């Protein structure tokens, strides 16, 4: 397990995310759509950033570009010092398995694999010999050691999201991308998941980019970014942090 970064290391390490004039334009039947229109953003190692904004503003697209899942059409994006623009498809896949964890609103577990296998598979991609032992540890960390052999269809929504969290954190990623991680959960379960997410962040020191519609959730991050019309409309410390 990776130890949390200390202050000195954080100062010398490259930023977790750095974008310069980041642009994303997609073709559609109605013509070109400018989704990101020049985003400049630097996120330091270990930071937590809540990203908010109205629907269609470009929040998720920003996450996709940072995750190497969408190719920027302009500008640059660096994650952990790596320029994603120079990597091919296989390079991006390798980069993701070594550096990124992703949590989705819809969990996206593999329905034909058990909870343990869902967590282990990501570690197997990374060539970890102890994939299953490590996966079991992670599931225990999210309170699911009694459900390891269950398939996603046999788990509740909250349990599925815990498995997804375990999968995302299992490889000790440098950067965790979370897209509406509580969007499909009830309030009580959402609170549990959010506590887990921040708890694991605190344990691992992972940089966190969290897209949400819930301002209250974004306020739990150290920094809050508001995206509007493909641009950063506001970038400020979260109120809770500012109040501390």
């Amino acid at each position, binding site marked *: 397990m990776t130890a949390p970064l200390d202050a000195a290391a954080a100062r010398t390490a490259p930023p977790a995310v750095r974008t310069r004039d980041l642009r994303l334009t997609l073709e559609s039947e109605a013509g070109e759509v400018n989704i990101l229109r020049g985003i400049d953003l630097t996120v330091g190692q270990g930071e937590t950033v809540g990203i908010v904004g109205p629907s269609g503003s470009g929040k*998720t697209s920003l996450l996709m570009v940072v995750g190497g899942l969408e190719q920027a059409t302009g500008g640059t994006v660096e994650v952990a010092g790596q320029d994603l623009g120079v990597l091919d498809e296989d390079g991006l896949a390798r980069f993701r398995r070594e550096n990124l964890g992703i949590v989705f609103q*819809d969990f*996206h577990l593999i329905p*034909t*694999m058990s909870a343990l296998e869902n967590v282990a598979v990501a570690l197997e*991609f990374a060539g970890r010999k102890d994939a299953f032992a490590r996966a079991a540890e992670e599931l225990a960390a999210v309170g699911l050691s009694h459900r390891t052999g269950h398939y996603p269809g046999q788990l509740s929504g909250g349990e599925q999201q815990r498995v997804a969290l375990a999968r995302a954190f299992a490889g000790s990623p440098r950067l965790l991308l979370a897209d509406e991680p509580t969007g499909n959960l009830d309030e009580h379960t959402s609170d549990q998941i959010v506590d887990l997410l921040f708890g694991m962040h605190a344990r691992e020191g992972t940089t966190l980019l969290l897209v949400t519609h819930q301002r209250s959730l974004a306020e739990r991050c150290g920094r809050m970014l508001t995206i509007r019309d493909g641009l950063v409309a506001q970038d400020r410390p979260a109120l809770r942090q500012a109040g501390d």
Partner: protein
Amino acid sequence: MASGLALSCRIAWRDLAGGPGPGFRGLAIFLACLVLGVTAIAAVGSLSRSFVAGLDRDGVKLLGGDVDLRLTHRAAEPEQLAWLAGKSRARSDVIEMRTMARPLDPKARRSLAELKAVDGAYPLAGSLVTDPALPLPGILAARDGVWGAAVDGNLLTRLGLKTGDRVRVGEAEFAIRAVIVKEPDRVASVFSFGPRLMISRDALPATGLVQPGSQIRYHHRLLLPRGVSVPAFIEDLKERFPDAGWRIRAADEAAPGVRRFVDRLSLFMGFVGLTVLLVGGIGITNAVSGYLDRRAATIATLKCIGAAGRLIFAVYLIQVLILAAVGVTLGLALGAALPWLGVVTFGHLLPVAPEPGIHPTALATAAAFGLLSAVTFALWPLARAREVRAGDLFRDRVAPARRRPRTEYLVLIGLGGAALAALTVATAGDRWFAYWFVGGAILFLSVLRGAAWAVGRLARACKRPPGARLRLVVANLGRPDSMVPSVVTSLGLGLAVLVAVALIDANMTRQVTERLPERAPAFFFLDIQPDQVAAFDAAVTAVDGTANLRRVPSLRGRITRIDGRPVDQVEIAADSQWAIRGDRALTYAATRPEASAIVAGEWWPADYSGPPLISLDANLARGFGIGLGDTLTLNVLGRPITATVASLREIDWRSLRFDFAIIFAPGTLEGAPHSHVAAVEAPASAEDAVERAVADRFHNVSAIRVREALEAAARIMEGVSWAVRGVAAVTIAAGALVLAGTIAAGHRRRVYDAVVFKVLGAGRGRVLGGYLLEYGALGLLTAIVGAGVGTAAAWGIVVHLMNSDWAFDAPAALSTALFCLAVTLLMGLYGTWRAMGQKAMPHLRNQ
């Protein structure tokens, strides 16, 4: 690399073993298509090898010995027989000829019969089964001055006789003492002129049938001492009697006609099996495509957590291989078991009982085809699956990739196709036909695919057709995931095969049942002795209604050398091999026959006298690779005659007119003992009178009723064509499977559409009517395109491969096309009926 493969295998297996995930049920069509294709190929291969094994096993029985020496017109010389006796442990001499069997009642019908006169040693191998079961010498022996005979039950039926009655053959009378139930050396011939009549060789002189030049076949059959090699004996024999002129056959060539028939039939059936696999291949593509489309979210997830595209491709390729292995194994089991069951159950009913067994080569070939086609046809969807956009997971709408696969995968698909073509050519018994099959398959698949594309384009170009129902039909036909391409290609190909088979069959049957009788004479007469010709001509022409009597001298000879080289050292075209297989009918003439036209050289003067000259069939000359001025050497009655080719004639054998491939100039054959053959035209009502006029007066002359022979040929063709159609129908079954898969794949869309229509107030009848219209249009399009392609294929085969006349048989094509339309409508109706029964709310919620 190895660890990557191990990881791919682990994930592929884990994913499969985790239970039926999304889209797994659609793979049933994958398995069904593969099982059907592999079963067809394995079954055809196994059955064919069972027949060949049966022929090999029974070779000595079918031949009547280890070696058979056959001479025409004459028996072997005493010196030759003495040498044979010294070299063998047993010998049997058998004489065969055609004759007329006549009941004692002068008003009763006569019948052509295949006469077999056997000696006391017959049969050397196997046993003759008779009813009543009596020893053969006792049956055939003379009792109270009357010789005995054993006959086919068929002959009794034809003559209206029973066991114990008497029958006249030539000048002699025979008591029918037994019915032949099984004759060990009666080789299954596809066609024979008459039923068997077996007598003693000692009785033959009494018949008076042995006349100079009569078409009599003398067989000398030998059992060699144990340990003597048959090929070495044959070499020895050839060396000892190089000009004996006999046809030598060993047990491995006991039934060459049957062997050729089995080879041809299995070649054709094998191609049908491959077509089934080809049609099923489209089903495989669709099934894998549907499966991977439903797995798009899983693929995107795997990519998000770091799986490279190559790993995705490998994982699903391994799954396809696992399923293909299951399908191939099932197909092989069925393909091995069905012929085995068939052979064990029905084998004894066949003239040559096939040898039941497992045939590894046939199964290995089928397995190779199955695996290769499964992988080749799955490559396209597999290659597209790696293009699934992982980022779509964020949008909650993971769409299946619709991009064209990367170049390296297109190359792989091309290589897979090339390997399938190479395997087809390498495993086919006839390379030339295999090339035609591969070329035809590529052409017709392209045409069908092109037609499907054109229909889609047309539907998309069609702006706002009148009426909501028609608009919906046109929209569904033109939509990107329309059923048109796969249904038109797969069901269309199956239909094309069936239409082609139906049309070829209709053309060949028409040739035999309509066209030939128009031109053909009513009778052929054999073995007319030179001293009978005047009386024969008078007797035949005296019958009212007879016309165009033609009579020519005839004797038989074997081609032994072509332009000085022994025939076994000459490369002879496949379509000319028949001429060197046995004895050829020869004639001589001063003037050119009317039926054929000279295409090279000149006909000799009517009063020609000089070195031997021949006029040769131009096609045979091409097949032999010789021309004017070259020579042919023939063994006629044991004497080699070398003649120079003076002219070439184009002969239309289909006319059934009298003609000969080899005609000698006057001056060579006249001195040899020979008989005459004749043909005469007569109305059906005069046939009995003609037969009586000849059979009663000329006991040695055989009369062949052409109408009966053609009817017998038509019956055989009908039997074969039903078998062929039955196998060809399997291609339609494969097409129907693809259609079922396509309908199943579109089920969700249809359910949703039906639900929306119902919510919008459309009645059940209206929605159903709309879908029926869509399936009707799809079925009609498929029927038109498939029937068109099938007709073009049949035309090409009839006109160019069979060199026959072509006529379009509309009922044959239309009935087959209508069948296809009905299949589409029925399956569509079933699918729609299921969709209509769905409750609205769950589907609207899920969307």
